[in-house]
């Protein structure tokens, strides 16, 4: 049903995710979290979503790790006597309940690549994009056609949000320049 590669990747992602939550040393957390992001990027690539995989690899494993490391350099690491966090029982109960609810829905998911999956079998949306993206937008990557063509207004909003985030950081830090002139 699932290949050995998928099984190993799944075990790797779950292990790194749990380790990220349990480790106490912040530097170790950042390193393990980067490994987790890399595992997720491979997962997305395996699930035929290369665009998402590249975003996860570039932002999740790359930029976020560098920014967190830099923040760590700018602050002070406390020496830890313990390697792992003691699990918080109430949090564990809440987490277990949420996990049970989420896992209960998994069996109802359509198989990966199934022709009956709603995202695939919807002729008004998905099939329309697949059939008309090239003639309408003139690009071969249907994802780009949706992002910059059909849904360009949404992308415009997202781009402005990223720009506003940069401006907000300047305001919060009460600075007027990104770099020293």
């Amino acid at each position: 049903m699932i290949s050995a590669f998928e099984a190993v990747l799944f075990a790797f992602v779950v292990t790194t995710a749990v380790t990220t939550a349990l480790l106490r040393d912040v530097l170790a957390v950042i390193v393990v979290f980067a490994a987790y992001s890399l595992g997720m990027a491979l997962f997305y690539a395996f699930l035929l979503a290369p665009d998402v995989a590249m975003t996860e690899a570039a932002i999740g494993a790359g930029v976020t790790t560098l920014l967190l490391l830099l923040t760590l350099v700018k602050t002070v690491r406390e020496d830890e006597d313990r390697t792992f966090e003691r699990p918080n029982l109430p949090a564990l109960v809440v987490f277990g309940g949420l996990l049970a609810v989420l896992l209960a829905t998994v069996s109802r998911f359509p198989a990966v690549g199934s022709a009956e999956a709603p995202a695939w079998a919807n002729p008004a949306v998905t099939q329309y994009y697949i059939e008309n993206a090239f003639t309408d937008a003139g690009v071969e990557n249907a994802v780009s056609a949706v992002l910059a063509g059909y849904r360009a207004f949404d992308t415009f909003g997202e781009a402005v949000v990223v720009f506003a985030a940069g401006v907000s950081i300047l305001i919060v830090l009460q600075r007027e320049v990104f770099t020293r002139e």
Partner: protein
Amino acid sequence: MSEDGNGTAHKRETDGGSDSPNFVPTDGAESAVSVPDDDEDTYVESQVIMSTVRVVAPFSLTYGLFLMFHGADTPGGSFQGGAIIGATVLMVAFAFGIEPTRAWLRNRTVVALAAGGTAVFVLVGLIPLLAGGRFLEHHFYVDIGLIDTPKWGLEAIEVGGVAPIVAGVVIGMFFLIAAGWPPEGETEVTGDE
């Protein structure tokens, strides 16, 4: 901005009772976490890191540019491309020191990337709207004979808009965090705005 002379120059500790809105903890004896001295240089020159980055950076920059320019026809796109281009600069800064990189890539460049990208995106969208079309209507440019396929409209907002915004904000965010709080070499901002 903070040169208005309302604070003592290069003052590091906040006075007791000051209602300043910044996040610098007062240096109480019981304070567990202290802010390191901003003048302290955390850069460590490493031959291994510098050599690695020297080899990897051209490839990652090329890969980012490829994703950006070729995203319309292959997986990838300007968001990923812009992020990788920004990450390349971060990598160079980590290897060769943040301060030299910051001096090399002036504030003007970072602002031009982020604000210029937004301006390009807005302009590409607004021109058809002002000429009687609809916002971001790429076919408008085809109809007036400026371009032969709407692909170039998509490319304009991807290459000219999204990628510079993402690269600029990533680089700017990195330099801002590197500058620390309070900003290096600047007077600490006191309570009154």
